[in-house]
């Protein structure tokens, strides 16, 4: 099965896919922006400020999803001794980090009209900030260490420590009294959000997922070319 993860096979797809993914991303984002800014209704309590949700929530979801994937890939890389898992994890990290920053900044902007403050040391906001620090440490570890074995080990340790924070982010609104409301969208039970707001939210999530796929593909190609550059030096 791991033959499917060989760089030779993956590069055939990753080198051609970005242009199609970029096109699809622009189409889905245009539909999402129209829905989010024009067609979706305003909230009876928050009025138009609720529209910030269409960028804040997908960004938070995707940053959490990417960090979980990075942890899974890093640990799998160790278990199966597959270097390519680490490369995939490394290529996912930049978009995950940027989505985390977007979630923090747009959350802060949303906080001002709804809570009357730009920042509060609330459990969810603080745990999201901690996640951003783990992302930063992960990215820095790849820059600092040149020894491959060392960077694999250290980056994996960072993700394993960081993953403890992910359930804390998810359940912080249930465990503590926070400014955040409990989850409105549940996979297992009925969601409390109306379909007129859920639909744009899902479209924006799809657009953000496509963007992270695009960045992943481009970053992965860079990593493969870097390896091939080293290979040419050895000839």
């Amino acid at each position, binding site marked *: 099965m791991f033959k499917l993860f060989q760089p*030779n096979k993956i*590069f055939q797809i990753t080198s051609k896919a970005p242009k199609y993914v970029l096109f699809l991303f622009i189409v889905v984002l245009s539909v999402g922006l129209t829905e989010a*800014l024009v067609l979706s209704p305003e909230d009876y309590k928050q009025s*138009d400020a609720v*529209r910030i949700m269409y*960028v804040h929530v997908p960004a938070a979801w995707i940053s959490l999803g990417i960090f979980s994937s990075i942890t899974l890939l890093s640990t799998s890389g160790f278990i199966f001794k597959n270097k390519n898992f680490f490369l995939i994890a490394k290529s996912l990290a930049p978009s995950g980090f940027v989505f985390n920053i*977007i979630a923090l900044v*747009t959350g802060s902007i949303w906080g001002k009209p709804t809570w009357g403050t730009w920042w509060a040391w609330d459990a969810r906001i603080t745990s999201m900030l901690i996640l951003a620090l783990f992302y930063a440490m992960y990215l820095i570890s790849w820059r600092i260490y040149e020894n491959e074995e060392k960077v694999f080990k250290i980056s994996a340790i960072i993700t394993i420590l960081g993953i403890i924070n992910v359930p804390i982010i998810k359940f912080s609104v249930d465990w503590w009294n926070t400014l955040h409301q409990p989850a409105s969208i549940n996979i297992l039970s009925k969601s409390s959000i109306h379909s007129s707001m859920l639909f744009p939210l899902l479209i924006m999530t799809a657009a953000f997922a496509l963007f992270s796929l695009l960045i992943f593909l481009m970053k992965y190609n*860079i990593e493969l*070319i870097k390896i091939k550059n080293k290979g040419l030096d050895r000839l």
Partner: protein
Amino acid sequence: MINELLFMNGHGVYVLSAFSFTLLSFTALYLVIKIQFIKEQSKFVAKFGYLNTDQANSAKSQRINKEILANVTNN
């Protein structure tokens, strides 16, 4: 209509700045990664140019190297 869309009951400045920040972050990340990609690709082509015939043939026997070179020509 446009005024309503921009004003958003007094929340326009918050909503539009959140969306602008998101789109600016997307553009910045895309450009940074694109520039990195072009740099690595150019480095690869430059290194490939210094190889002698035997080394070039040996390098070309690898599928990825061929794909990288083909992509440069297509771009």
